[in-house]
């Protein structure tokens, strides 16, 4: 029996606001425990939440970027359960009336494009951190993270395989980062993913029993966990068994998932509208104002690069990995007028140096103007492509302009036809046997002459000019 996997993904993205969602504590990661807390996010008696407007705007950006319909009115609900990292004993979230629904994104997968639906996006607050003590039967609670704003993005169960799931996540991730609303750092927990997986006989409509997968903290983890779960469920079903509806924790070291045994039955969260918060009304004017702030999204940018700059899709992909990189590349193109050449230099040498040093493009010592200048010098014939390699490395290491470096190293390419002709003539004169061989038809000898001229000019001669002159003068 052929089984088809049906996968839905839930992503929680921490938003890059300055302050938390309902109070004025900093939302920044990494502070010393319980130093970003106040009576409100500590859940002290008597406190009340007030919604950070920027959270709404960031949510709207993501909603628009994923083609969701933004609802006119939404409200907040309390999700009630007990856990030490949840100070109020409830999480403020959105339930019955979410702000955004029925969106989609396009995912490039298996050489084609597929639309994955987005069921809903809503806002909610993060919980704190619970750390288990290794030696004593105690746990420690750091509430810095309670109240950090999250958006939850729920996909339709449109995903049909582990690879596709990873592709979807990468797309979602890059949109979030492009919008500058999330830093997408999976290790630090600012981008989290849970998966719902079920199998059904291929060609059928009804959904099978699904399991929830948690604790996958990289794209690779997600893919491996899903592959495992699909196999596991297939094994169960083929053995005539039933898949149990449960939550499973992925253990990446062992490469397996474990059922989350717990004493409780399925949580009864007792959702009800939060009486301390009032509805959010979003009108068309606000939507348009936010829409105007949207940057060009990665997919559109890639398509534009391919179309306008005539570069291959792969190159466009590399160059749009981040907005900063894409902007850098475009600036180089703007100043040099050479998109293909610019792409080679950026993708090649520049990124290589940065990767070696684990630097970001924003910290690149070569400015777009400098790189563009170097490209222009190559095009003008002032330096050869080979010389440029030396120049670009020096530019990276010193931050100096191409002119400065060329002067310092004396790298100006010889383009004076007269001077070069003299050298070529000299080489021809010195090597009469090779001349004879060439004229007899041994074409390979041409390379020998090129080499000789290069040696004589310490590699500074313009190769094209050497070729032209040699051809002319060897012809006899």
């Amino acid at each position, binding site marked *: 029996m052929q089984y088809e996997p049906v996968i839905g993904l839930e992503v929680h993205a921490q938003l890059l606001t300055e302050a938390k969602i309902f109070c004025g504590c900093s939302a920044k990661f990494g502070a010393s425990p319980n*130093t970003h*807390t106040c009576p409100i996010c500590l859940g002290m008696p008597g406190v009340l939440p007030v919604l950070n407007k920027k959270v709404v705007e960031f949510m709207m950006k993501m909603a628009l970027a994923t083609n969701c319909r933004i609802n006119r009115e939404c409200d907040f609900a309390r999700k009630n359960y007990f856990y030490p990292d949840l100070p109020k004993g409830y999480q403020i979230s959105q339930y019955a009336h979410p702000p955004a629904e029925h969106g989609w994104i396009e995912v490039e997968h298996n050489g084609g494009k597929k639309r994955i639906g987005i069921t809903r996006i809503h806002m909610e607050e993060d919980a704190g951190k619970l750390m288990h003590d290794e030696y004593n039967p105690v746990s*420690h609670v750091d509430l810095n993270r309670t109240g950090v704003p999250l958006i939850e993005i729920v996909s339709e169960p449109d995903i049909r395989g582990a690879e596709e799931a990873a592709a979807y996540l990468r797309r979602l991730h890059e949109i979030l980062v492009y919008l500058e609303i999330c830093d997408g750092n999976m290790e630090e927990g600012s981008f989290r993913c849970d998966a719902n997986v079920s199998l059904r006989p291929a060609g059928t409509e009804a959904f099978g029993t699904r399991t929830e997968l948690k604790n996958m903290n990289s794209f690779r983890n997600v893919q491996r966990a899903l592959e495992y779960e699909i196999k596991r469920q297939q094994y169960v079903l083929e053995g005539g068994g039933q898949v149990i509806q449960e939550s499973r924790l992925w253990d990446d070291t062992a490469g397996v998932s474990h059922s989350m045994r717990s004493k409780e039955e399925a949580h009864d969260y007792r959702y009800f*509208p939060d009486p301390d918060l009032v*509805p959010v009304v979003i009108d068309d004017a606000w939507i348009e104002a936010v829409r105007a702030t949207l940057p060009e999204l990665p997919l559109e940018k890639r398509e534009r690069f391919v179309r306008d700059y005539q570069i291959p899709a792969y190159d466009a992909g590399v160059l749009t990995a981040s907005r900063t990189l894409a902007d850098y590349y475009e600036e180089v193109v703007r100043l040099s007028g050479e998109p293909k050449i610019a792409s080679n230099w950026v993708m090649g040498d520049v990124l290589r140096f940065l990767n070696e040093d684990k630097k970001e493009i924003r910290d690149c010592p070569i400015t777009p103007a400098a790189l563009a200048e170097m490209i222009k010098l190559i095009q003008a014939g002032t330096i050869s492509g080979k010389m440029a390699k030396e120049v670009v490395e020096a530019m990276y290491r010193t931050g100096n302009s191409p002119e400065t470096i060329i002067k310092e190293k004396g790298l100006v390419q010889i383009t004076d036809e007269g001077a070069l002709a003299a050298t070529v003539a000299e080489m021809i004169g010195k090597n009469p046997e090779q001349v004879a061989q060439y004229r007899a038809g041994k074409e390979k000898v041409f390379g020998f002459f090129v080499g000789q001229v290069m040696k004589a000019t310490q590699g500074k001669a313009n190769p094209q000019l050497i070729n032209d002159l040699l051809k002319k003068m060897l012809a006899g």
Partner: protein
Amino acid sequence: MEKIKITKDEVAYVAHLARLSFGEEEMGRFTSQLNDILLYMEKLSEVDTTGVEPMTHAIAQKNAFRSDTVDSSLPSEISLANAPAARGNCFEVPKVIE
């Protein structure tokens, strides 16, 4: 509403949800008191509420926002000052048994 009484088992389930525990005698008393109260609430089914929007707020306010500014947080000693148990800068609790 078909159920008009709450059983002891249901009371136990609700108690667990609310993280409360009762002794045998207390449980019996609570069950009968809750029964009386819930029976009284049955009155509500008499009211025709077709097409009536549930009312969450007495006064209709919308869009109450704060700006994205960082005010001062409490120093951690103050956040922890009322903690029944703390270690370092963290609240300490008995371990969760999974």
